[in-house]
């Protein structure tokens, strides 16, 4: 008994020792009310391209917080990095919507006081409290950038602009269709069915009952023989549109712009059924060792300039509406190209990725979770 107690005492001592440099951001459960002096270091788990020198260097200079970033290859990678080893190794993670809820429920990330982030009030309303990073009015991180999942098509193969997601389920396009290889893709099909088969009663494409998921899976199984390739990397789809014989597919603005730059005749459309999208959030580890630097980072990265720099560099849309002007300064027309100045209703219409969970708010806890989605996806791909 005595030894165990000693271990507890030692652990507590370590925690205290770690917390002392963090004075200024109090960690006793309550939200910090001010940001103290930086700890000189900030460790991040990020998507590749999210910590480029052009916007990280000015931050380091301003705050003295040296940024160390580890790139994650997938949402799951991010989740594992933030939860394994106690999760104290990294201060922040640029989680996408399909991981953020899991991080919140796993207790890996902490609530953030958005009042300490001045640019927050300049966000489009849709990104101030999106359901993939805000639970019960508590903000677990700060929205960063987003992108819609659009329908891309070859303008020579489709002289008439397709207006419905139906095009990627149409046997006429057999062998020309490319689809992302990701279980979250099930949501795209669910969104399509929610409009074309209202009898199924799908209201949220991420909250599917067993019967609804079965209907979606059967649609996607019918789609499989039509699919040229389930692509894993954006570059795969770019290849396939360049010289792989694919003329239509579910895609991101990044591919559309890359292909246009390469003079491939492509265009994209947001079909009438609506689109899904991804939204990334900088989340703060619940065991962050450098919380002051983390808050400084959130303050910095949401400012118009770094927002615009990252948007133009990566090909995504900033959540700060003031970034539009700077985007156009950096690359002419980029603000409109990435719809960074669209009306609020556009952002509201995008169904952003979120982790499918059993407890989906209908009170019955009978929704299919990510595990069921992944199994379904394996079945769909065969």
């Amino acid at each position: 008994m005595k030894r165990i107690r000693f271990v507890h005492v030692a652990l507590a001592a370590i925690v205290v020792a770690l917390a002392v440099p963090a004075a200024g951001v109090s960690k006793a459960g309550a939200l910090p009310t001010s940001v103290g002096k930086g700890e000189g270091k900030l460790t991040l788990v990020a998507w590749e391209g999210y910590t480029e020198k052009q916007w990280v260097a000015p931050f380091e200079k301003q705050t003295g917080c040296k940024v160390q970033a580890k790139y994650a290859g997938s949402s799951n990678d991010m989740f594992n990095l933030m939860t394994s080893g106690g999760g104290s190794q990294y201060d922040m993670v640029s989680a996408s919507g399909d991981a953020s809820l899991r991080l919140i429920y796993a207790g890996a990330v902490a609530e953030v006081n958005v009042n300490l982030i001045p640019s927050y009030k300049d966000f489009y309303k849709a990104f101030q409290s999106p359901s993939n990073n805000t639970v019960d009015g508590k903000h677990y991180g700060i929205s960063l950038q987003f992108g819609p999942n659009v329908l891309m098509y070859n303008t020579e193969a489709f002289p008439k602009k397709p207006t419905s997601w139906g095009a990627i389920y149409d046997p006429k396009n057999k062998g020309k269709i490319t689809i992302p290889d990701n279980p979250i893709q099930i949501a795209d099909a669910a969104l399509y069915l929610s409009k074309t088969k209202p009898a199924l009663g799908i209201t949220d494409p991420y909250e599917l009952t067993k019967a609804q998921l079965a209907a979606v899976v059967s649609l996607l199984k019918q789609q499989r023989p039509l699919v040229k390739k389930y692509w894993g990397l954006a570059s795969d789809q770019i290849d396939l549109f360049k010289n792989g014989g694919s003329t239509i597919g579910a895609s991101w603005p990044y591919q559309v712009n890359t292909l246009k730059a390469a003079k491939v005749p492509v265009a994209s459309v947001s079909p009438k059924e609506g689109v899904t999208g991804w939204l990334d959030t900088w989340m703060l580890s619940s065991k962050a060792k450098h919380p002051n630097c983390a808050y400084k980072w959130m303050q910095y990265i949401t400012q118009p300039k770094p927002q615009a720099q990252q948007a133009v560099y990566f090909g995504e849309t900033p959540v700060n509406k003031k970034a539009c002007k700077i985007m156009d300064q950096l690359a002419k027309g980029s603000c409109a190209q990435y719809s960074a100045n669209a009306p609020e209703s556009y952002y509201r219409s995008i169904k952003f990725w979120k982790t499918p969970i059993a407890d989906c708010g209908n009170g019955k806890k009978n929704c299919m979770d990510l595990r069921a989605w992944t199994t379904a996806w394996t079945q769909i791909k065969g």
Partner: protein
Amino acid sequence: MATDPALLTEGSPRGGALRSVSRFSWRRPGLKTFGQISAPVAAFVFVYVAALVALLIKGFWTTDSFTGKVVRSWNLDNFRTIADAPYPTIVLRTLGIAAAVTVTCMVLAFPYAYFLVRVASPRLRLVLLVATVLPLWVSYLVRVYSWRLILNPDGALNWVLNGLGLPDLNIAYTNWAMWLVFTYIWFPFMVLPVYAALERIPYSYVEASADLGGRGLTTLRRVILPLAIPGLAAGSIFTFSLTLGDYIAPSLVGGPGSSLIGTVVFDNLGLANNAPFAAAFATVPLAIMAVYLVLMKRLGAFESL
């Protein structure tokens, strides 16, 4: 003759610990052997066997599907799930492709290795052997990606076919493409053991066969081929097991309906965060290889490695 005590210790002037260890081990040969092999055995047990055991144990656990944490409650659910669709199809597909790749490699490698051993001049042999292993110096990814360029509808394959007045062959992103790419990538692993096996056959055997009236084909069938079987079996272990575990080629050159065992393991580890099921599923190729190795041992594969 009186014994000079100094002579007795000649050649071993030092006493001490080392010498007593040496004396001790000489008296107990069993312990000596143990001492000599214990380090490699320990490395084998701790690094290799322990990793496999950890894998097996994990297969009996489950993960909390939401938090992704491993729940250490013992059950057989993961192993039962393997029998559910679509997993049996995927296992059979993997076996089919592995077998097809192995047979193709054998058919290609045997005449090639025979040519190297019996026909080619020493200089040509060296050049060809280097050319055979040369692709192994290039990254695996580069080799797979280069096949994508070849097989694309606008790629080199159709360019050649059209030049010959033949119609297009669109096999990019199909199981045919996987078969081709695997055959290409694992080919050197088949050639080298077959080459080694053929090289060991003394030429006098061929002469003896001829003396006894065996013509070329008879000699090949009744002398050379039986003696080459250990080499073919050894090569097949490589081609078969490497295909069984691969997940990169299916994701890069495979199409819809090209999931292999490796793909499922990777998806469960990388996307679903379901390590226990991935572990359980990984025992399938392990079991297949155990059976395969026993079969190949009967054919003498291990004498030719």
